[in-house]
């Protein structure tokens, strides 16, 4: 159990997928103008990353590794991610059309989110078992969601602040993101202790 907790803390905070590995920056800047939309995107991405990690693990373990097909890994994982997005879209639409209308906007954006592919490739490097790889993917995407929500909260406050005209919009957003990345670097000290 201790190993699982350490794995999850490491993936969520120490090696944060956005601020330490610099993946998923497009949605990080684009969908964080409001906390609500950031939560919606974060949860959708978490779901897709976790589900696609399960498929990626199965294909890597039973197909790519035994038959020495590592050169097909990126293509295979992209297909799995696209399938996971389509699966999620179909399931949400079946579960509730009203939910699909409210949340459907986020799903196509996830297909082009490099954080999803990045986490899948990190899983291969880690050589985890099925449960551990799923938990690692879940924790990594939880870190992504956490950063999205924190950054959206900061941007909502910035919208009320008096920012010089030249710095308004993306420039102050990038400066805030860099300060947030510096703050998250503090977690890297945890691995030394």
């Amino acid at each position, binding site marked *: *159990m201790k190993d*699982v907790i350490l794995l999850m803390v490491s993936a969520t905070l120490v090696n944060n997928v956005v601020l330490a590995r610099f993946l998923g920056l*497009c*949605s990080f*800047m*684009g*969908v964080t103008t*409001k906390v*609500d*939309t950031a*939560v*919606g995107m974060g*949860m*959708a991405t*978490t*779901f897709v990353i*976790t589900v696609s990690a*399960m498929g990626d693990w199965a294909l890597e373990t039973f197909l790519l590794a035994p038959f020495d097909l590592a050169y097909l890994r990126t293509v295979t994982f992209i297909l799995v991610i696209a399938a996971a997005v389509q699966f999620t879209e179909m*399931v*949400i*639409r079946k*579960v*509730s059309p*009203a*939910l*699909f*209308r*409210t*949340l*459907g*906007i986020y*799903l*196509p*954006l996830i*297909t*082009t989110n490099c954080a999803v592919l990045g986490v899948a490739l990190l899983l291969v490097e880690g050589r985890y*078992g*099925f*449960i551990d790889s*799923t*938990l690692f993917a*879940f924790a990594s995407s939880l870190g992504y969601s956490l950063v999205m929500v924190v950054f959206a909260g900061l941007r909502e406050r910035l919208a009320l602040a008096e920012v010089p005209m030249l710095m308004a919009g993306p420039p102050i957003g990038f400066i805030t993101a860099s300060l947030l990345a510096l703050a998250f670097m503090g977690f890297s000290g945890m691995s030394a202790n």
Partner: protein
Amino acid sequence: MLESVAKVVALEDGTPWLEPEPKASCSGCLSLAACGAKGGGLRALAARRFPLTDAPALRIGDRVVVGLPEGSVLRAAATAYGLPMALMIGAGIVAETNGAGDGGGALAMAGGLALGLLLARLIAGRLSGRGDLTPRFLRRVAADGACAKH
């Protein structure tokens, strides 16, 4: 209130049906035409078509601003993604702590996911019945693109 612009694409028994205008996750670039970031194409837009029951008289082609109450997206996301995922991960952790192997863990997680989706369906029905997931008419978009009051 979360706002979005939508266009009237059909009228059925006096009720306007709207299609949301696609939004990009980024500000757009020269390769936008070849990029998947702008909402998934016409088929995806048609799938998100919705009726607007509280609107004044609208005609096909009218553009309006619709809104969802604060917290609606949060509740919807927690129902659609949070609950199934929490049950799936919870089942996986229980299987792991009880010494189940990869196969047992996968089965437990699939069961947790199925149970979560079933519960999500029930909760979504309740949210939908209360009108929490129904977009509301806010104002028309004027011909010049500015948002006019009614």
